């Protein structure tokens, strides 16, 4: 029986600001190339669900208006179910707006309006007055290995992490969560939150495979992935590191 991986793409038409669907494409393609059948389900507003039946959850970034709608949907419909899934160890990737909404709250710049998050991540976000934007390189340790992760950030929200979560990595180039503490992203159980677009996963096959492997080990017990030829991805990864080292706009 062919092995499969069930991927849930949350709010694909609302939270897809910077090509974040590339992450779902990366999960699906790599799984296919490894002989694993991907099953992608889109879940949108007002649909309640049991998210523990998925192997991977993905939620991307969106504009402020869309994020408000999702915030309401989380509060009224899905938030607890998603939190339950993450707490039970479902592998999750949340980018930008999705990352912010998994935290405790987002304090906007307008009159201290506070948008509540799901609160499953011990993190909170405050609107800053400058845009943190540009190519990013971070150093991350996952599964005992330390590697670089590359991407592009574009956010005015500044996210701060509490005690019970760890950062995704240390910033070598770029701003990271808040431009102050030198860290980017957040890891909690099997949930990764990050500000990195790019899309994130295509140029970081190590991270993609780590997430796929974690999901499949949970599902099938001991499981090793078929190694793929990542020549082109690695070229792009190294080119992104050089590009991040240069001044922007050239």
């Amino acid at each position: 029986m062919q092995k499969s991986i069930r991927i849930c793409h949350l709010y694909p038409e609302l939270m897809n600001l910077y090509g974040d669907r590339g992450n779902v494409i990366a999960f699906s393609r790599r799984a296919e190339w490894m002989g694993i059948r991907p099953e992608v389900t889109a879940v949108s507003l007002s649909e309640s669900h049991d998210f523990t039946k998925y192997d991977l959850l993905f939620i991307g970034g969106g504009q402020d208006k869309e994020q408000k709608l999702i915030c309401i949907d989380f509060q009224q419909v899905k938030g607890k179910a998603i939190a339950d899934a993450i707490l039970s160890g479902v592998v999750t990737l949340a980018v930008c707006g999705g990352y912010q909404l998994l935290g405790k709250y987002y304090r906007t710049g307008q009159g201290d309006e506070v948008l509540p998050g799901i609160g499953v991540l011990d993190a909170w976000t405050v609107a800053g007055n400058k845009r943190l934007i540009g190519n990013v390189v971070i150093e991350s340790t996952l599964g005992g290995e330390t590697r670089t992760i590359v991407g592009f950030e574009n956010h005015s929200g500044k996210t701060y992490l509490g005690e019970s979560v760890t950062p995704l990595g240390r910033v070598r180039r770029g701003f990271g969560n808040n431009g102050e503490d030198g860290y980017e992203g957040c890891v909690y159980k099997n949930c990764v939150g990050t500000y990195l677009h790019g899309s994130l996963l295509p140029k970081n096959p190590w991270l993609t495979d780590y997430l796929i492997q974690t999901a499949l080990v949970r599902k099938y017990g001991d499981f090793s992935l078929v190694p793929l030829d990542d020549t082109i991805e690695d070229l792009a990864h190294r080119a992104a590191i050089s590009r991040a080292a240069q001044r922007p706009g050239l």
Partner: protein
Amino acid sequence: MSPSALLALWVAKALARLARLRGTGGSTFPGRVALRIEPRLLAYLSAQHMRGNITISGTNGKTTTAKMIADIFVAAGWRPAHNRTGANLIYGIASEFAQRANLFGRMQTDVGLAEVDEATMPLAVKELAPGVALVTNFFRDQLDRFGELETTVSLVRKGLEQMASGSTVVLNADDPLAASLGESSRLRNVFYGIEDRSMGMEGRAQVADIKRCPHCGAEYEYSGVFYAHLGRYRCPSCGYKRPEPQVKLLTYRSEGARGSFCSVSTPEGTIDFSLKLPGVYNAYNALGAVACASTLGVPLDTIRDALSRFTSSFGRMELVPVGTKQAFIALVKNPTGFNEVIRTLLEGEEEKNIVIAINDRYADGTDVSWLWDVDFERLASRQQKIRFVITSGIRAEDMAVRLKYAGLSLGLLSIEKDVKKALDRALGYTPDGGLLYILPTYTAMLEVRDALHRMGHARQFWEV
């Protein structure tokens, strides 16, 4: 003119002459220096235009629509000052207008026609005092510069609010955000849109930039979708809907890459013409041009003749002879535009030779994530028609990864970052009499034009 304005003018002209001699084609630096010397230079120059000034803004189609209007004006015997190279920030407009004044500061042109970047609208409207402003559409584009689509729209709105009462705003009725700019009763609104009842695919737009009412946030219902989020829309919650256009595309018949047949009705009458540019998006550009020109009183016959003769400008999309072969250069800047280019490219049975050059400088958009919203899967699904794809530019490797994940066979794919070397190789692989598709982002397109020029083909851009 004041001494400082004259000095600013002379400096701008001298710098432009120097750039031409050195072959660097600087189209914004002269204006930048001039405006430092005399910030109101542009206002002094544009005030001299007897026929007034016009601004063209919006996400897609500015350059093509502006060039169409320029050709229409010339056909009508008018003399436009027009930033034809597409340098659409305030410096580019100032540079262009400075070139059209004589040494005494007298404009040799009688109408100003400025393509204006959306964020520049407030300043441009203040300096140019246009009697007519055209807004084509709003798409998510280069968000790393503007941050949010809403900010872009509000900047254009801020510009329009500075127009004198009774001025005219020409707006695309089929684009909900562009149409929403027509809510001021202080200004005269002229709407244009598609009224061909045979058009309008049902169903959601594929690239969903805006599908919600800007007033109440409810999702639009569409009784017809023409292109991306453009169509016949209505908000079921507050009743806001697409305004009735005065300038209507009654009939649109596509002839593939060769262009389309259009029949357009205006309050002054109806004209038919064959447009040499393909796609619904170019029909919209023509519609905007008809709306603008007819509102200014240009006779319909003149408009029709000019549009029938119109060919594409400055490498945004053009066919260039290259020795025994041809190059089809189509600028790509956002998912919707790229999807249209892919659709055009896939028409026709011959094998496709393709170069895709992606840069990430400021003018290209520094975040290349948008490539993941382009439907390259569609291109890959017809790869039996593709001879090769070479990816080039600063982000050549990103483009190659995108194509790999879209399903393109690696045997068809190669990477050559240097644009000139990529073109050399691509032209080598293209058979005699064959067509090479070159799809660059903005600064890569400048490199492509430059490379083709050095090979002895295609004039330098400012000669166009």
